């Protein structure tokens, strides 16, 4: 069983090595000739104004909550998708229908959130 996870561990190891290497290699090998302009805060070419400590809209938190709910939805799709072929052979089309019902129920909630303006920014 543990053997099956070797590719996962390899991906994690490569990801860590790649992330650390790219960040620190530019630190080590890159030339350092700082000027006033280079050291100023990067704000997409604009002159930086104001503070970074701005008050965030609570709307962002709502997006995080929506994300969690659809995250949970994915969890129930996942075991279904893993076993779909076998389930389909044994039970026929009803396997697909029950997942569609599940998704439609959640889609109603999505539509409600959309109509309510949960995805609007201003």
């Amino acid at each position, binding site marked *: 069983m543990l053997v099956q996870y070797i590719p996962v561990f390899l991906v994690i190891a490569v990801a860590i090595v790649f992330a650390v290497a790219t960040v620190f290699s530019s630190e080590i090998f890159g030339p350092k000739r700082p000027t006033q302009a280079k050291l100023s805060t990067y704000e997409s070419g604009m002159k930086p104004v104001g503070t970074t400590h701005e008050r965030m809209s609570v709307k962002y938190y709502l997006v*995080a909550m929506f994300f*969690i709910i659809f995250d949970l939805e994915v969890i129930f799709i996942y075991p279904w998708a*893993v*076993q779909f072929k076998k389930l389909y052979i044994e039970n026929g089309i009803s396997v697909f229908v029950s*997942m569609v019902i599940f998704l439609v129920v959640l889609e109603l909630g999505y539509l409600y*959130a959309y109509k309510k*303006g*949960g995805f609007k920014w201003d």
Partner: protein
Amino acid sequence: MNIYDIVFYLFAAITVLSAFFVVTTRNIVYSAYYLLFTFFGVAGIYVLLGADFIAMVQLIVYVGGILILILFGVMLTNKITSVEIKTGSVQVVPAAVGVALLAGILMASMVDTKWRSVETAMPSATTQGIGMLLIQQYAIVFELLGILLLIALIGAASMARK
């Protein structure tokens, strides 16, 4: 000490060390990021226990979801006013007593329990079985879960102020 033990101690070390940093770091944002490694280490231990579905849920819900929620909470509340949120240690003595008691109870129950160490074979993967049960035996429960999530979604959406 085989490869299994090594991997276990690796994940246990990741979990315990990052949990230690979660409570000792002064900056609450760093705490949240250390919590990521704690959740990740726990997911690794779930994999070692053969609970592959739980490990996946741990990764998707906790590392992916709950942590985002915590970071958003920090982002929305931190530095709004001149008061910065700092984490510190208060009530050290009662906490130490409580932790010592809990550790003692856990250790005692661990020593007292007659562990069955006969079964050494790894359990088979669980995700397929859960998929089968979810569609065949617990189909109604599955659809009700959809409605439960719908209620949560509507609850979240109704909090959206125009």
